[in-house]
């Protein structure tokens, strides 16, 4: 197949050919771009990252629950302070400590999903991501809770996980105030952080495994109440 320059020009300089080329190129551009960044995921995934600041509320959330040492302490501290919190549970722990999970629910707290094994979702294969979320939801349902809230371990989130959440109507539960108490941290440091940075509408992220977190609860609650803030459970989003 040898085309001369003239033949080439007669075919490719035609307006009809150019329009056809343009249409093909446009289709490629839009399909390619929306495959790279799917708009339904960008715009359609339910998420909660803070509460309405006008309502003067804050929400306490605990990750990595339940924990044999700190969950009973946290529950005692919450009871003393007369607040309820949302516990984002790891499915493995729920299986190991069903009694603690029962205690959490029994005290009026809420369970959320923090994956089955606490693996960063971005490191998993696509086929593993779904079960990682669903198994924990099933366990929570077994314990009598109903929730759509999922908080990805370590904040790890990619397009595959977003797609799964979009398809299965799962709400992404972010936070707005994070002190980083997964590492050993004295209680006064935790309290100081919130004393400096607490604002209306905050979703406070604390960790169940932190051994000084239970001590920090009552000062945090006192501080928030002095500012006229109410404590609520984490809302479900727009499901």
């Amino acid at each position, binding site marked *: 197949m040898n085309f001369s320059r003239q033949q080439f020009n007669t075919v490719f300089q035609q307006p009809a050919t150019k329009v056809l080329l343009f249409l093909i190129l446009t289709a490629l*551009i839009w399909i390619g771009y929306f495959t790279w960044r799917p708009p339904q995921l960008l715009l359609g995934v339910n998420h909660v990252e803070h509460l309405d600041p006008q309502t003067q509320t804050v929400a306490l959330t605990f990750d990595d629950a339940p924990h*044999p*040492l700190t969950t009973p302490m946290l529950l005692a501290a919450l009871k003393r302070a007369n607040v309820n919190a949302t516990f984002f549970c790891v499915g493995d722990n729920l299986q*190991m400590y069903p009694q*603690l999970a029962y205690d959490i629910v029994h005290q009026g707290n809420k369970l959320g999903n923090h994956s089955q094994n606490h693996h960063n979702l971005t490191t998993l294969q696509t086929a593993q991501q779904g079960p990682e979320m669903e198994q924990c939801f099933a366990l929570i349902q077994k314990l009598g809770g109903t929730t759509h809230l999922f908080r990805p371990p370590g904040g790890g989130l990619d*397009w595959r996980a*977003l797609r799964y959440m979009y398809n299965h109507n799962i709400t992404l539960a972010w936070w707005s105030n994070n002190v980083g108490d997964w590492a050993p941290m004295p209680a006064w440091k935790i*309290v100081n952080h919130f004393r400096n940075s607490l604002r209306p509408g905050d979703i406070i992220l604390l960790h169940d495994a932190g*051994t000084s977190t239970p*001590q920090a609860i009552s000062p945090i609650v006192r501080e928030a109440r002095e500012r006229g803030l109410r404590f609520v459970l984490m809302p479900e989003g727009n499901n």
Partner: protein
Amino acid sequence: MRFIYAAAVPILATALAAWILLTPRSWIKANAPSRRALLAASCLSLIFGALTIGAISAFEYFALGGEVLSHRPFLTHFVTSLVMEPNNNSFPCFEVMLAASFATLLWAGRPRVGICGWLLAAALGIAHLYCGTNFTVDVAAGAIWGAAIAGVALAICGIPLVFPVTTKTRLRWKPRFQGAASVLLMVISLIYVTGWMANTPNHLPPLFALLHGGKSAQAAPMITPKSTFNPDTSSNDSDQKSREMLLLTDSVKQDGYLPHAQKYLLSVLQNQQTGMKVLGVNVAEVKSGTTPYRCAAIRFEVNGNGNAARKRVTAVAAHLVKTAFHADSKINHIDILGMKNNLENSTLYTEGGTPVFTASVDRDSLILHGSRAWLNAADTNPGLWLRARSLLYFNPQVLPSNEVFPAKEFLDK
């Protein structure tokens, strides 16, 4: 805003394609570049854009061990996200980069069209800020870098840029430097910028951090304790101190930690092995339902890096758990957290170290061989937070060979 956010880049790309393929001859001015050259420049700038994205992804994967260069604002700040992005890199904003490069190419075709394109690109940048998915720095850097790659592509293809200063005056800028030199310049600057960001603790250039109002973007912002430790400044110092004392007394009276048991266990554990440091031991009598039990939380760190340290953390954890069960016969349950004391370029852990191993071990259900031996496997990515709060699975390859480790032994003693 949400429409612009989702569709601005393909709109600009379509406009560019339309300009190259469909414009009638009468629209094109006499001194405008040929459309073939413009097509070549667009292809080149697309390639440069893809290379930029690839280079930053590769840098994250290889140099940062899977961590992102800069976190999204919704992870670190109080923002309202109108769209949901995956938690990937935020710096620079690739969409604004592409939009800016397309707008610059349109500018080369005809300046007024280019101005419209740049307005759309600016709207996209504002949408990214308004929707809360990028920092100002990210959008600004994306726009600058996008203009730069388009400029280099135009330079290689020999296309001048015309700036209409007033309606009559035109500023014509024809790049003098040759294509190869400009590519070299771009590669060097890319390496420089990525290296600069990697060496900056929060992965943001300090100059740009001023745009955030002086606040540095950290994944886990921690308050420095300077003000509370300074003894002779503030008037409410005594108030602060009394509050701290209250916290301390809270810990003893209310939360049920056992200081003597803690002290004893710490003294037993801290000299067990070299190259290891016990960071903290907590022991408490707690109650689950109606069942009281004694639980210990042990935290330690190990010197070193990579998979060798990872294996060592597991081995030390096994040893410490065994020793602790031996030392205090009343302990029913141990929670152990092992860390490496180097940061491994991690952006998530700004203090303390990288947690690599966590386990909750019941005295009754100590397990020797688990199905999940991958927990200790050498090929797991050491830079990522792999954490399994489950029974402690002792990998026989990790344990010292002379150790015998049946659960019954502990039940007897």
